[in-house]
């Protein structure tokens, strides 16, 4: 199995979720993160003083999937999240050795 971590633009979350649902991925976990990278943050100005917040609000999506569909998922996320602008984000694929569904104790792919 693979553990896929995608860091995307916040407003692309819904499209991504729909895309994943489209290929049968029901479950995922989302968290608010701050990104640093090529894209620079907006400057805020208070009383004439500029605050350059280098970070950009992003959303991190974590998806555990079966090996077969891993590539498909990466692609789906990529397509759904892409706007073509700097800061679109990344998708990372990590190996996943085990999974358990807490409710039932099911192990492995069945747990997803």
């Amino acid at each position, binding site marked *: 199995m693979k553990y896929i971590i995608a860091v995307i633009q916040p407003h692309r979350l819904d499209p991504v979720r729909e895309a994943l649902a489209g290929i049968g991925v029901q479950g995922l976990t989302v968290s608010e993160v701050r990104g640093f990278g090529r894209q620079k943050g907006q400057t*805020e*100005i*208070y*009383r*004439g*003083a500029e*605050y350059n*917040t280098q970070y950009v609000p992003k959303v991190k999506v974590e998806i555990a999937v079966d090996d077969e569909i891993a590539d498909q998922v990466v692609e789906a996320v990529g397509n759904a999240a892409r706007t073509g602008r700097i800061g679109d984000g990344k998708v990372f694929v990590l190996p996943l050795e085990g999974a358990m569904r807490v409710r039932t104790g099911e192990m492995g792919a069945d747990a997803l």
Partner: protein
Amino acid sequence: MIDAGNTAWLITATALVLFMTLPGLSLFYGGLVRAENLLSVLMQCFGIACLVSVVWLVCAYSLAFSGGGAWIGDLSKALLSGMPRDAVAANTTLPETVFFMFQMTFAIITPALIVGAFVERMKFSAVLLFTLLWVLLVYVPVTHWIWGGGWLAERGLLDFAGGLVVHLTAGVTALVLAVLLGPRLGFPDEVKPPHAPWMTMVGACMLWVGWFGFNAGSALTAGADAGMAMTVTQISAATATLVWIGIEWAKFGKPSLVGAVTGTIAGLATITPASGFVGPGAALIIGLVGGAVCYFMVGVVKRRFKIDDALDVFAVHGVGGAIGILLTAVFMDAALGGVGFAEGNSMGAQAAIQLTGIGAVLLWSLVVSFIIAKVVHAVIGLRVSAETEEQGLDLRLHGERGYNM
């Protein structure tokens, strides 16, 4: 003789001015600091309010408003002892208790204004001790000079609602403390932006509305003077806000809410000393000047001189108050819609008196608050440890978090 109408307005005005500090000013300042220091700011304002309330009763009111000394009053009204329950305040139609309370709220907000200078790094114990001494040694004498029949009153200085008594004393002291404390860690480039501009706006609104009590209440009657004071207050506040919005729009392309409400306070501080003497037209100009000059001064203090008067107390209150005192001499001219000069007085003569007042109050505040700060520093120290400053004062000094989500 007590007049119910005037008393009704002054009790209300008292509530409004207390509301300016609790929670108005507290929120205004609280929104401008890091989330980790929010509670410490609220605590400073709240603690000051309680401490001053008691001190005011014990002796401060008496020292400010009783007796005929040129420099300081006497203790005849300490603890309001001997005052009959239905005593009438001198030259008013108000119960003395109401005048006592109305004046107390001014004595509360003035040291609370100074909080803006030392937020995020001053010890709570030092804040209380400094406030105690400052009220007795700076606020009380200056109040006596100007409103208690002291030497500046004698000379005919005009300060309707506290351009010198409140704003200049607080502004100058803010500068002194900012310099003696030193800047916050990371100042100027690494300080955190205001954690809750919305909170600052709410505080500003409360200050604005409360300012009707501050300025119109200073008429001590519910009549034409109060009405005009309220009017010019509104016009100056609104104008200064638009000025600030305009400058930011021109300069950055983005008018900010924090900027707008800072303009409001600048306009309010500037009109304060003039609010009983000028007309609506003048208020437009006073708001314009106050807004523009204060905007400029914020940059001068923070960026030119690199003084971390964290929330710009001097640039807004000190400068605004002083400008207002000066412009009073101009716009009180009947020809300009003002009340007109006192018998045999001219604009020049009045301006001279006003300048004397500015000089004297500035000097006194500067020297005395410097000494007090040094004393407090020697006794208990002014500043928290670097670690406390880093982690935030809320948790380290007060054992609380502003937000437990």
